[in-house]
């Protein structure tokens, strides 16, 4: 025991400490101009894998062969935004809802008018909220009121912890407002009743999909169209059907260059090229392949058989994210009111 701190041990210990600390003091130059970090949300894994590969190739061809290394990180939209806020060196954010990027803008990471810098509210692909039901639709669910029928269980995650769930919630809210005689009060009553049919509040969209698909829980899953299409076409075409409600929300997951980080890394030009690539025909086609609705009308028309016709309303018609967030999802907001005793 007495030789714990003998000279050799001590030297070894010091070396080990130095080795452990080395990554911490690595010079910042490691962020060379040819590395990009895209901080994204959960259901875009497969999409950005393909985008990253094709963009990197296109950029190398146009700029004399120097390849770009793009890394993309995924997670819940809000958690991802918070990590960027707390210093994750994202050059680009591609998140589930504009509010999460607004928060970054409020903290000076990018310009307040970021959403006007790219076409279509900086949204290269849209999606919508649909119903995923068991094969053959045994409970005959066609429209929003059907969700309130006795014995129908609805699976949707907690809008407080999941960006996707906020779209679900707002789709229901917007539909209820648009009914004859619809007022905020009737919409609130509808949602209160709707969440009475929710047996489990998962924290994220993937967790809710798991509850529905793996655990056999519930009769309807409220889901992003891209997730629902992926689940039916690639996981189990014989297990599920998609029901597109007559009216639903236009989900717009936007993208932006994080000015402050890109400037610090010297990647502004390439980051800008990356987000513009998403709107190019190549980028739009990749999006459609991964079940995201392209904003380019020509490419959308090419993929007509993939995407059902829907009547949608957008977030602006509900007053925009800042208002919606404050009214519905802030502490003590309308959503909390649903769960008061």
């Amino acid at each position: 025991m007495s030789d714990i701190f003998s000279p050799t041990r001590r030297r070894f210990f010091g070396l080990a400490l130095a080795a452990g600390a080395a990554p911490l003091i690595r010079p910042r130059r490691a962020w060379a101009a040819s590395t990009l970090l895209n901080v994204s949300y959960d259901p875009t894994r497969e999409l950005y894998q393909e985008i990253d590969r094709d963009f990197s190739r296109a950029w190398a061809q146009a700029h004399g062969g120097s390849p770009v290394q793009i890394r993309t990180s995924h997670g819940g939209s809000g958690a991802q935004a918070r990590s960027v806020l707390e210093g994750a060196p994202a050059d680009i954010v591609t998140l589930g809802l504009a509010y999460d990027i607004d928060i970054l803008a409020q903290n000076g990471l990018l310009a307040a008018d970021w959403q006007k810098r790219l076409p279509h509210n900086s949204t290269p692909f849209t999606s919508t909220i649909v119903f995923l039901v068991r094969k053959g639709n045994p409970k005959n669910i066609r429209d929003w009121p059907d969700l309130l029928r006795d014995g129908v269980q609805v699976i949707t995650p907690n809008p407080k912890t999941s960006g996707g769930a906020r779209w679900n919630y707002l789709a229901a809210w917007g539909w209820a407002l648009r009914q004859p005689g619809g007022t905020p009060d009737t919409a609130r009553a509808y949602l209160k009743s709707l969440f009475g049919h929710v047996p489990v509040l998962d924290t994220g969209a993937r967790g809710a999909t798991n509850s529905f698909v793996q655990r056999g829980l519930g009769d309807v899953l409220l889901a992003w169209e891209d997730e629902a299409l992926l689940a039916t076409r690639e996981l189990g075409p014989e297990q599920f059907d998609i029901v597109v409600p007559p009216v639903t929300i236009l989900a717009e997951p936007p993208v932006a260059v994080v000015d402050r980080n890109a400037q610090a890394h010297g990647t502004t030009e390439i980051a800008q090229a990356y987000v513009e690539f998403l709107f190019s025909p190549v980028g739009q086609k990749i999006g459609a392949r991964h079940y995201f609705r392209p904003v380019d009308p020509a490419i959308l028309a090419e993929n007509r058989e993939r995407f059902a016709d829907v009547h949608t309303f957008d977030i602006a018609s509900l007053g925009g994210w800042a208002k919606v967030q404050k009214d519905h999802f802030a502490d003590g907001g309308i959503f909390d009111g649903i769960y008061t005793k």
Partner: protein
Amino acid sequence: MTALRLLSGRFAWPRRRDALPGFGIGLGLTLLWLGVLVILPLTALMVRPWSGGIHDGARAVASAMRDGRMLAALRVSFCSALIAALADLVPGLLLAWALVRSDIPGRRVIDMLVELPFALPTAVVGITMATLYAANGWIGAPLARMGLRVAYTQTGIVIALMFIGLPFVVRTVAPVLRNLPRDVEEAAEVLGASRAQVVGRVILPALYPALVTAFGMAFARGIGEYGSVIFIAGNQPFHTEIAPLLIIIRLQEYDTRGATLIGVVLVVLSLLSLAAISVLRRCLSHAQA
């Protein structure tokens, strides 16, 4: 003066041979690690709610204390952890007994398996539990036929916490059991005690302090447990929403102060229960001595 000499003698780089070799550097490193890894983050946690001034912070604390949903979440977390820690004592004791006293085949394998809950990522535990206990799962389906729902109820939370807490009991009780002098038991038997009397009046009392420690550790761990619980809990506000989930919800609202407040409450309550348990343990040890 003595204190000063003691200080200079102990904390200075050891020039002469100390009774404990390397005491100075050992203590220094301990304090450094403790400071960086434990005290600094805890201090940051404690200070954060007051960043807007004392008055502001006090108002936030007061309104948090009136928040029915937070109180409900704290109740769910504490009650579940309490029940789970208590429920762990019996199987934990039996397991420790089997591992120490018997020579069952595969003892070493069981010994290793006991530690698995420490090693598994908690999310894996939670997802596995939810899969097993859901109404279509291996255990959940027969239970559902009997009308018992486990997953997505508080029972589910307790079961997940029991899984997480079990190794604390086994690992705390087993060494004490191993070191228990056999001659005391033999003496009791020679004096005419039945086997039940030996267990109840000789062995168990000697294990009380260890059992209390085990309970305390399992309980304290259970209060803050997130990963393993979240998948099986159902997360319904007022019923199956645990306090750590409420922290995540507050963070998602970008309400860092609200989140830290719940964190502070959890830390304070955990510390208080650990202190109470340590007092209880001391009483028990004294009662035996």
